[in-house]
């Protein structure tokens, strides 16, 4: 583990915001467990819980908390300067931070989604959701890491993307789905284990190619932005 990744992980779990990662996974697994315990038909609860809560809320929100936490918090409190005053290629810093963000988001989202998918349908669906959410964690983390470098309010902007772009526009304006990570994740899960509970609205090639573009494009742009990281003087 690189020193940058080590500091990032310690910083992430050393802050109280790490506790924010717990409620959503617990809620997802709890709801799925309850429905299963009371023998509610999966066709009644599967889509709202797996897609409505799991893929539309849990995965992006967890990625937002972690993705902005690995870099945005350090930019905010100025500790990033300690890492930037080292002769490290900026690419290595971004890759280390992205690695931590993807790892933590993927585990936090994929495990409960696997359990919920299993409870709703089968181990197959659980695995499909887990794999798709790992792919989603890559794309979201790249995007939110970049937002940390582009704006002073990455969380706000991230929420706008999740709630307005994906949640609102994605539902009513079909063209916006091409730029919706949530749709890529649904498509990938649906193609791995086809099920009536998931309804893909973009094709698999679009999901894979656009997902790749999100990951690589945002990472490359982040490296460039970090190279030009400026510090504003407090007294001048």
């Amino acid at each position, binding site marked *: 583990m690189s*020193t*940058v990744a*080590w*500091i990032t992980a*310690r*910083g992430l779990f*050393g802050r109280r915001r790490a506790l924010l990662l717990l409620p959503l996974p617990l809620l997802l697994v709890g709801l799925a467990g309850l429905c299963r315990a009371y023998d509610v038909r999966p066709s009644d609860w599967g889509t709202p819980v797996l897609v409505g809560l799991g893929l539309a809320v849990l995965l992006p929100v967890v990625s937002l908390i972690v993705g902005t936490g690995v870099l945005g918090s350090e930019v905010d*409190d*100025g*500790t990033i*300067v*300690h*890492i*930037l*005053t*080292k*002769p*490290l*290629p*900026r690419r290595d810093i971004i890759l280390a931070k992205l690695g931590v963000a993807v790892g933590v988001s993927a585990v936090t989202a994929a495990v409960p989604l696997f359990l919920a998918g299993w409870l709703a349908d089968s181990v197959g669906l659980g695995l499909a959701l887990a794999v798709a959410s790992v792919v989603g964690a890559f794309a979201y983390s790249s995007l939110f890491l970049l937002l940390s470098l582009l704006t002073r309010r990455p969380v706000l902007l991230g929420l706008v993307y999740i709630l307005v772009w994906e949640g609102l526009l994605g539902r009513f304006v079909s063209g916006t789905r091409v730029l919706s990570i949530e749709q890529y994740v649904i498509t990938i899960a649906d193609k791995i284990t086809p099920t009536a509970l998931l309804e893909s609205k973009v094709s698999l090639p679009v999901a894979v190619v656009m997902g790749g573009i999100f990951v690589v494009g945002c990472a490359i742009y982040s490296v460039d932005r970090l*190279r*030009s*990281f*400026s*510090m504003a*003087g*407090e*007294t*001048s």
Partner: protein
Amino acid sequence: MTTVDLQNVSRWYGNVVAVNDISMTLDPGVTGLLGPNGAGKTTVLHMMAGFLAPSRGTVTVDGTPTWRNPAVYRQLGLVAEREAVHGFLTAREFVHASAKMQKLPDPKAATEWALNMVEMAPAADRRIETYSKGMRQRTRVAAALVHNPQVLLLDEPFNGMDPRQRMHMMGLLHELGDRGHTILFSSHILEEVEQVSGTVQVIVAGRLAASGDYRKIRRLMTNRPHVFAVQSSDDRRLAVALIGEKSVTGVEIEATGMTVRAGDYGSFTRALPRIALDQGIRLRKLIPSDESLESVFSYLLEA
């Protein structure tokens, strides 16, 4: 030997000019970057440290630009003004992480060396968030020093330090300067700069107002009379003789001696011993009383 060079550097934010056409070269030794609050000191330091692009001009360390060039941090250390540290780490972990990120051959030894330099070794296993302001500052200096950089930039390094820590830090900067490191520290407190360094770069309203040894700068300000406190075996007779000397513009007799104002530093200091010798007067004290950095600084601000 490493030098930091600024050539015609300007930096503006929208319509506001923060730094205006500054050129300076920092040679090995300790240099004080002096100026009132808001003069542009931090902007200059950030440009030197590669954290701000100059709007115009070039900032180089040994000929290499600092902007968008992480390799420069092999020979440059920065202690920024903002007191930001990873509070969840201990000082030892923090400095060790710096050593590892610098890819030093023996990070452990370098960590101990740096902690000892700032006298932080005894408390190094406590989390940084439990430290006083001064201890945090010293920890940050240790992290910036761990790779023994040729150039060390410090923004207001004495902030929050108690007098003993301040003395120690001043001693440390002196020592590094004497060893051939290029040290630049900013301050708006004159006594600090006066005690640590004779060489200053004075920035006023974004412009370089003066540069060099402040005593020499004072001497070059020929439009202001130089003030000397003089004591002799016969002040009154000496005063009469001095007033006939061209370079003297005024003499005041006081209970403890006299104050002499001279228009030209060189002519007066050459003339005084001659006059005293001619008059058979013994000189007991001759002190230039306005050569302090404070008077130089206030003259520059008024100019």
